[in-house]
């Protein structure tokens, strides 16, 4: 509860602060302090300290998993703000409002990680989506950005319609919005219920850009201001998975193999589309957009398996994927040239940052000693635990091998090719933060329990 209310308040505070403060650079610090505060109170809640005691009448239920997920999202946002705050200022003149929107997104994250009623799911998803539509179009002078925002909004509105229809069908069959499982045994679905569930599945797949509902992703990620792409590709995306797993671990989960085939098919399609298309990209930004689709395919294994291993895996995946992607975007934002060639010779001029980027890329590729390895490891072992998934996991690792191709292209450009890079001077604190992010990725890759223990304390 702390996170939901506090982030809403902080959003309003940010919005109003622009009337009193004229210095653009100040907002970054206010937002960072706000996020740190939010983080502390979110942690405090998992130790039982609540500022507001509100009877949610079974609309919301706070679990360790949800709160840990919030913590990861808040921390990732904090890292994002501290690394890219400068670049947010460069997008347009409404800096305070951008930060306000980011806080509202976190409010939505707090809701989708804790809902027990389909109504709250709907509200949470919308609270996340609407600020993101605005952020996509925040660079008003950029035609591509405008196009992206409009596209995202229209497609998003359409998927919201489907979500609502699905909720209505489920309400129609059950007579309530509640998703808590009543009995332990698996009941066969009625046709209406099945149709409603499929609609929810489609709508959420759209939000996490799973194929074949991913077509908006490359254009929107490419068109949006690069800083906000970083935010959308990480925090917004993993929040979608939190919503997903809450829905399917509830009464609508483990339908005795009734949903396996559908989810399995979506996983394979997502991995195939994401990885194979990423191979052909010439722009790093677009490559990252497709890579985010590919990574979503792996995260969907959590929804497929729905066991404890899968939940641990999703936590690890969210953390390591967010850290790595935010790290890469923080550098990319400052580049003039987004093409792979633009990175030629980067290791010569920025050896430290190049080293950090290598760690991030290795993590995304899933090489041991990085968090990305254990993330993929958990997903695969969750799936194998379900059993009878031979073909699915073999396809998944083959696509993981494909992903090495495009991640390593960036390493090749940075280290093995000659060129001059036009990279602005960065502050020492930026470098320290980047190194800390890389260190966190490596710690997750050697001792994943430093993070996972918070699920069980």
């Amino acid at each position, binding site marked *: 509860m702390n996170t939901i209310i506090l982030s809403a308040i902080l959003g309003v505070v940010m919005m109003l602060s622009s009337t009193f403060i004229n210095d653009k650079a100040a907002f970054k610090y206010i937002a960072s302090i706000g996020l740190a505060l939010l983080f502390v109170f979110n942690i405090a809640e998992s130790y039982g300290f609540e500022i507001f005691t509100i009877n949610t009448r079974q609309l919301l239920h706070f679990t360790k998993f949800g709160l840990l997920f919030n913590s990861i999202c808040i921390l990732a946002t904090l890292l994002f703000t501290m690394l890219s705050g400068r670049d947010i200022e460069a997008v347009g003149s409404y800096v305070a409002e951008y930060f306000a929107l980011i806080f509202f997104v976190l409010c939505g994250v707090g809701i989708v990680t804790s809902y027990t009623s389909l109504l709250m799911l709907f509200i949470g998803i919308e609270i996340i989506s609407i600020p993101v539509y605005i952020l996509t179009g925040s660079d008003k002078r950029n035609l591509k950005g405008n196009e992206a925002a409009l596209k995202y909004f229209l497609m998003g509105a359409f998927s919201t319609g489907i979500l609502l229809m699905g909720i209505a069908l489920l309400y129609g069959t059950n007579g309530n919005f509640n998703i808590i499982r009543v009995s332990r045994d698996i009941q066969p679905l009625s046709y209406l219920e099945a149709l409603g569930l499929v609609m929810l599945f489609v709508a959420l797949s759209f939000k996490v850009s799973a194929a074949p509902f991913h077509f908006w992703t490359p254009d929107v990620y490419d068109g949006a201001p690069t800083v906000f792409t970083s935010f959308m590709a990480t925090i917004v995306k993993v929040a979608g998975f939190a919503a997903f797993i809450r829905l399917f671990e509830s009464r609508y989960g483990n339908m005795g193999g009734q949903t396996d085939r559908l989810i399995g098919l979506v996983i394979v399609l997502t991995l195939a589309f994401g990885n194979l298309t990423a191979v052909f990209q010439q722009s790093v930004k677009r490559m990252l957009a497709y890579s985010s689709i590919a990574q979503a395919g792996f995260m969907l294994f959590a929804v497929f398996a729905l066991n404890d291993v899968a939940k641990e895996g999703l936590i690890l995946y969210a953390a390591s994927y967010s850290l790595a992607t935010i790290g890469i975007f923080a550098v990319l934002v400052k580049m003039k040239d987004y093409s792979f060639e633009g990175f030629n010779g980067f290791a010569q001029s920025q050896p430290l940052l190049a080293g950090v980027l290598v760690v991030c890329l290795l993590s995304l590729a899933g090489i041991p000693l990085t968090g990305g390895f254990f993330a993929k490891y958990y997903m695969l*072992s969750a799936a194998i635990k379900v059993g009878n998934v031979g073909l699915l996991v073999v396809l998944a690792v083959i696509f993981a091998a494909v992903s090495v191709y495009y991640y390593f292209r960036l390493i090749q450009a940075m280290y*093995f090719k000659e060129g001059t890079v036009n990279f602005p001077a960065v502050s020492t604190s930026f470098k320290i933060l980047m190194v800390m992010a890389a260190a966190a990725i490596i710690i997750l890759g050697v001792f994943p329990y430093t993070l996972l223990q918070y699920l069980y304390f």
Partner: protein
Amino acid sequence: MIPVLLICIPLFTGIIACFLPNAKTAKSWALLASIATLAVSLLSIGLQKSSSQLMFDASWLPLLGSRFTVSLDGMGTMITLLTAISFPVIFVGTYQNSYQKPGAFYGLMLLSQAGLMGVFCAADLLLFYFFWELALIPVYFLCSIWGGEKRIAVTFKFFIYTFAGSLLMLLGILYVYMQSPSHSFAAANVTNIIWAEGSQNSVFWLFFIAFAIKMPIFPFHTWQPDTYEQAPTAVTMVLSAVMVKMGIFSVIRWLLPMFPDASAHFSHLVILLCVIGMVYASLIAIKQDDVKRLIAYSSIAHIGLMGAAMFTANASAIQGVMFQMFAHGINVIGLWIVADVIEKQTGTRKFSELGGLAQTSPSLAILLVIMALANIALPLTNAFIGEFLMFSGLFTYNVWLATAALVSIILAAVYTLWMVQKVLYGENKDVATLTVKLPVGTRLMLIVLVVVIFAFGVFPQPMINLTTGMVSSITAQIK
């Protein structure tokens, strides 16, 4: 404690070496570090009796059932000794070579040694996988930064090939883990699973493909000649002397004990592939015009024989494989050092441009001939012992396959002597440029290698005693 030292010395000295700016300091630092590792490794032979020193166990991922367990048995001691010897020999043998960014070069070399040591010491399947991947990353950077003209594409092919293989192995590891009753990755646990009839078969292939790519066994060998050719020679030595042994070692350490039934079931097919690879690689080697490529193909043929012998489930053959792992590592480093000196000093490694070096550089000629004879396993050289044991095992397994494999031994004599003839004898096309003067360090290392070749060729027993316990436990597990 010994295995931890074997991993940690190269690891930490390697990290430090990355920050050394000066070529000379980096070289001497790397040499000192590798000699320290060698000293520890020699110590481990002396400590064979006291097993507490050869084992280290610490908690790592308790909930996953994985522990940081490293240990050295006879085979582990033998192969870590090979790794420990190779690096100082390589560093001294290529001492005169200069590299851009020397600190990074020697640092990555040491890191790859740390990874290799980890692979050979790990007694926990997940830990083994970690090191298996980690040994690859430094080599990827080494080949891509300091390699030849086509280095980027070639190394990339090598990397993706092996990475795809190891991901399949990861699936296999997960599957084995799920099957194991106590859900742990410990070697003693995963090798004692009771499998249902035929259920080993598909998992066997997940592991086998990863190992076969690394060795490499036909038809997974296509990355190898290109990579050996393009990589800087020091790295090629690491690759062919030690890294390919990862595949062979892992088959004996993990694959055979974990899947005895499947190994027996598929042994015919695997041995057939190995023998095809031997003959095929030998035939291609004859056609080569390039010293490096010739050694690369010859290496495929040798590895093919080891691969075939491993799957015979015959004690003397497996003993031969263990011996030959060491012998091949020593011999191939010698060949590479000679090839490197020739290339550096004459500017070419093509047979068509070389010739008559015996007149101008007699000491090189003597050393090259000894290396060449060791390569074709002449009696008195160490390779003879290994190949003899392997062939005797292969003959009891199947006479026809052994005969086919013997063809490749004859072919080996053909291409190796051909190489000697074209490089050392014949007409010296341009006497002025075609002289090779052996630098002191290189000469010294070649002499050391020659001594080792003869020493183990005449007194193989100490090495056999070292590994014989492992051989009997493996054969017992298979039967």
